[in-house]
């Protein structure tokens, strides 16, 4: 059967006028925090007054001369991308009328090698978006109707924010203020919050994404994987992907290196219930039954040990607990795993032997979004153990020893010691969480008799929490209990509608930020500088945080008038300067941490209790957890329901790009992938809109298009995350596609580190417009 699926964007026949009549059920919530449509401005709206806080001519005037591009009328300015968090360095090209015409990768940057991904290439769409937040907004309570926003000057909005935060601190203590952040500017608000006396600083990238991986890696190797992952894909001979859909997950450097590996004839093994793009590039695709990956991993470990295919020298020298592991997995044979995973024993053996043949130039990829089933730390522990048996950690073609560029920090007063932290809300729990839990702070915002206090104010920077945290009702319930919330963003997002104050940040193309120092094979630094002045009345994040700090009496923590002073000083300390970086954008510093790989026989001290790679973890055992991973059976979908699997499209980043004109031109809505056998049962047709209903009776606010495809198992459906916006101000994204987060009401909590497993939700189809979503 041949099935054509074209992204012929100029050939789209019609755009359905999507359900303009539906109002999200959250819009008419009758709690004390109504959702405000930003278009409902004007009631009591003040004229925009920008007096007082113009930043002075230095930054806000000309962003600098830029470098003239030969033979064109263009100038270019260095930047690093913020459309996702891989942070590729590039050049912003500006024409003589100060229009941003394109963004092109910086050839010297190892994150992108001169080639941005579609999102980075589509970056101008973020700048040009006419739906952007344009001016500070303050919530107005109306006794006889819903709340509204009124426009405010920066001076007023910042004064008000500072006053409210201080009031919350006076009444409940500064520890009751939390920061949720994602993105470059989060650091400034983190400094502000620490100076204020709270260290409740969380990013959903931990508990909703990478957390189990980092916890598992720390337990095994004594260090986190980090981003970018130190996977030596370009030189690998065997790449094993467990649900990682590189190529759809467009983390640029990894996609590039995977392509290089394909050129060099590397074996790719992909484990996925869906025939992902990566699966289509693989020598072996293991179409696993969802939620059974750990059984497969344990059986691979069994084969390596039973067939004595593991790297004996490496294991003897670098690992702790091998004999216990051997005993642990002795019955976890491929035959044992077959009944769980549906993967045939000979295929399990064959793929284990392929890994061993390539070892140590083999990568069993640690994954990135790994919060699936609540036993995720243990599953990634199995991945870590498998890599140790293959000797790939510290080997060429396995994992390299990354190095991060270190810049000196500005001198500030010491931060006060907070009296309480988020951990006090969870006594005895999640001790191995290395970072704060965004979901944990959200839950601890809802008052409970089990806790003496709860969070009272949130600062939300660049993260659209209702479409990020699982269980949207719970998130909105938490928000309804806040005394105060301030949201800093470039776009009106669902979260900004619930804020008391909304502060518009300018986009990454219009601002300076801190020097990028993310790790790589060599330590690199990259500069982001504005190519144009900020549009509308938006301001850079650093400026917003600094102004707030000054109004809160914490100005000493931002010891500069303009961030360029800090950047120039930091750069000069490492032998560069702002002037130099404005010309080159990216600079390689000297590697000082030693070789990229372990040498044979080298004695390595790992940062674990035993000083070795811990196949057996006394630390986990001590906390009451399995010291070695144990397979647990997870619930399966009931009759007529299908497991909801979600993932990414290469041209979108979560929900933050859904209104970018350049990117929705490539993909304007998500669709739900349905196996043809299932489609036949339900009499579904490709292109038909259906509503989704989950196991808890939650019905999707918006319908989603069916895509019937052989690329998905019959017990699962798949959709791309980040669509189904209910925010009318997002004129292009509003009501397009369904929101997977809305369907994720069941959370399988990882008891080790508090990760929110989100793959245990099951959905069914409603082919008729359901009554309950009409209002």
């Amino acid at each position, binding site marked *: 059967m041949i099935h054509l699926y074209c*992204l012929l*964007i100029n050939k789209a026949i019609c755009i359905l006028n999507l359900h303009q009549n539906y109002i999200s059920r959250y819009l008419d919530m009758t709690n004390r925090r109504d959702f405000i449509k930003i278009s409902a401005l004007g009631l009591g709206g003040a004229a925009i007054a920008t007096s007082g806080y113009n930043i002075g001519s230095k930054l806000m005037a000309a962003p600098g001369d830029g470098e003239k591009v030969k033979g064109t009328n263009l100038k270019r300015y260095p930047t690093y991308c913020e459309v996702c968090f891989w942070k590729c360095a590039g050049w912003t090209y500006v024409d003589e009328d100060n229009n941003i015409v394109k963004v092109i990768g910086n050839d010297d940057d190892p994150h992108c090698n001169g080639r941005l991904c579609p999102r980075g290439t589509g970056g101008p769409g973020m700048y040009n978006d006419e739906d952007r937040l344009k001016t500070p907004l303050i919530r107005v309570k109306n006794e006889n109707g819903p709340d509204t926003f009124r426009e405010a000057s920066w001076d007023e909005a910042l004064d008000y924010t500072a006053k409210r935060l201080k009031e919350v601190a006076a009444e409940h203590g500064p520890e009751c203020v939390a920061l949720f952040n994602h993105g470059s500017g989060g650091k400034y608000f983190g400094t502000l919050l620490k100076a204020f006396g709270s260290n409740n600083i969380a990013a959903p990238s931990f508990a909703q994404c990478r957390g189990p991986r980092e916890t598992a890696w720390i337990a095994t190797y004594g260090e986190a994987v980090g981003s970018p992952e130190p996977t030596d894909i370009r030189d690998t001979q065997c790449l094993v992907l467990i649900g990682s859909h590189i190529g759809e997950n*467009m983390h640029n450097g990894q*996609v*590039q290196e995977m392509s290089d590996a394909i050129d060099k004839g590397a074996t790719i093994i992909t484990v996925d219930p869906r025939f992902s793009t990566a699966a*289509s590039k693989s020598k072996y695709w293991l179409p696993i039954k969802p939620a059974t990956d750990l059984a497969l991993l344990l059986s691979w470990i069994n084969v390596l040990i039973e067939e004595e295919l593991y790297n004996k020298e490496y294991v003897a020298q670098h690992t702790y607990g091998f004999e216990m592991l051997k005993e642990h997995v002795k019955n976890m044979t491929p035959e044992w795993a077959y009944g769980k995973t549906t993967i045939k024993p000979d295929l399990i053996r064959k793929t284990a032997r392929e890994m061993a043949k390539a070892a140590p130039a083999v990568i069993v990829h640690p994954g990135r979004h790994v919060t699936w089933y609540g036993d995720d730390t243990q599953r990634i522990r199995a991945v870590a153990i498998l890599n140790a048996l293959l000797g790939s950690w510290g080997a060429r073609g396995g994992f390299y020893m990354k190095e991060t560029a270190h810049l000196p920090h500005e001198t500030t007063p010491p931060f006060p010691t907070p009296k309480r932290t988020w951990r006090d809300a969870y006594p005895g729990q999640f001790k191995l969480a290395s970072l704060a839990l965004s979901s944990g702070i959200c839950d601890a915002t809802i008052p409970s008799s089990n806790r003496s206090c709860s969070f009272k104010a949130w600062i939300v920077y660049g993260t659209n929490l209702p479409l990020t945290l699982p269980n949207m009702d719970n998130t909105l319930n938490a928000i309804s209990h806040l005394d105060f919330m301030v949201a800093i963003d470039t776009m009106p997002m669902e979260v900004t509608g619930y804020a008391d104050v909304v502060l518009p940040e300018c986009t990454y193309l219009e601002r300076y930020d801190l020097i990028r120092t993310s790790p790589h094979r060599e330590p690199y630094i990259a500069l982001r500088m504005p190519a144009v002045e900020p549009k509308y009345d938006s301001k850079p994040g650093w400026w917003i945080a600094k102004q707030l700090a000054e109004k809160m009496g914490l100005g000493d923590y931002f010891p500069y008038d303009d961030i360029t002073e800090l950047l120039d000083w930091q750069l000069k300390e490492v032998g560069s300067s702002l002037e130099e970086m404005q010309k080159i954008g990216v600079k390689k510093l000297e590697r000082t941490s030693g070789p990229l790989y372990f040498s044979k026989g080298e004695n390595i001290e790992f940062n674990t209790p035993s000083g070795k790679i811990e196949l057996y973890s006394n630390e986990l055992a001590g906390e009451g957890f399995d010291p070695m991973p144990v397979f647990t059976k997870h619930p399966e979908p009931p009759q007529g329901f299908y497991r909801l699997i979600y993932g990414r499209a290469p041209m979108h980043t979560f929900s933050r790009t859904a209104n970018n004109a*350049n990117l929705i031109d490539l993909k304007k809505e998500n669709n739900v992938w349905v196996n043809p056998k299932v489609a036949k049962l339900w009499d579904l047709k490709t292109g038909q809109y259906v509503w989704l209903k989950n196991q808890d009776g939650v019905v999707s606010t918006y319908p989603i298009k069916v895509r019937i495809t*052989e690329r998905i198992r019959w017990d699962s459906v798949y959709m791309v995350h980040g669509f189904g916006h209910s925010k009318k101000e997002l004129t292009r994204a509003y009501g397009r596609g369904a929101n997977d987060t809305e369907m994720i009401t069941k959370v399988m909590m990882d008891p080790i580190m508090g990760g929110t497993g989100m793959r245990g939700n099951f959905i069914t189809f409603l082919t008729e417009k359901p009554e309950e979503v009409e209002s």
Partner: protein
Amino acid sequence: MRYAMAVDTKKCVGCSDCVVACQTENNVPIGFCRDWITETVDGSYPNVEIELRSERCNHCENAPCVRCCPTGASHIVDGGVVLVTHDECIGCGACIQSCPYDARYSHPDGYVDKCTFCMHRVEKGQLPACVAVCPTKCLYFGDLDDPNSDVSNALRNRKYKVLADEAGTNPQIYYLI
């Protein structure tokens, strides 16, 4: 000189970067495109295959669009590149009908537009925008008459196909399979 392109379907991930890079490089209006991605799925679960292709004007040697153009706006230049002179185009759409690859569109300004192989870049020694941006490096461009060009090298050691061979257009976009 004979410009051509090879697309490695074994490396393309269908990310559409070529599409958006072309749009920003060539100021193609939002909602239109000069290149696009096609995905073909074959087989049934779990024996499935996908072919992903970045497609565009095939710069045919025997170009029906050029033959049917009443004004001569569609023409072939040195290197075999098919171009449209916007000023001479009356937007009649005959070329759009005649193209077996559906590679042309009506620009809102009233003329027909399509891929130019980014000749404005190639003349300066640069690669077409789609080739330069592709994260998987699955696009190879160059002169087929030069045995050392990227495209000649790519075609030398691999099996390849062209689209709608039966149309007799002698297309110059090759798909490595």
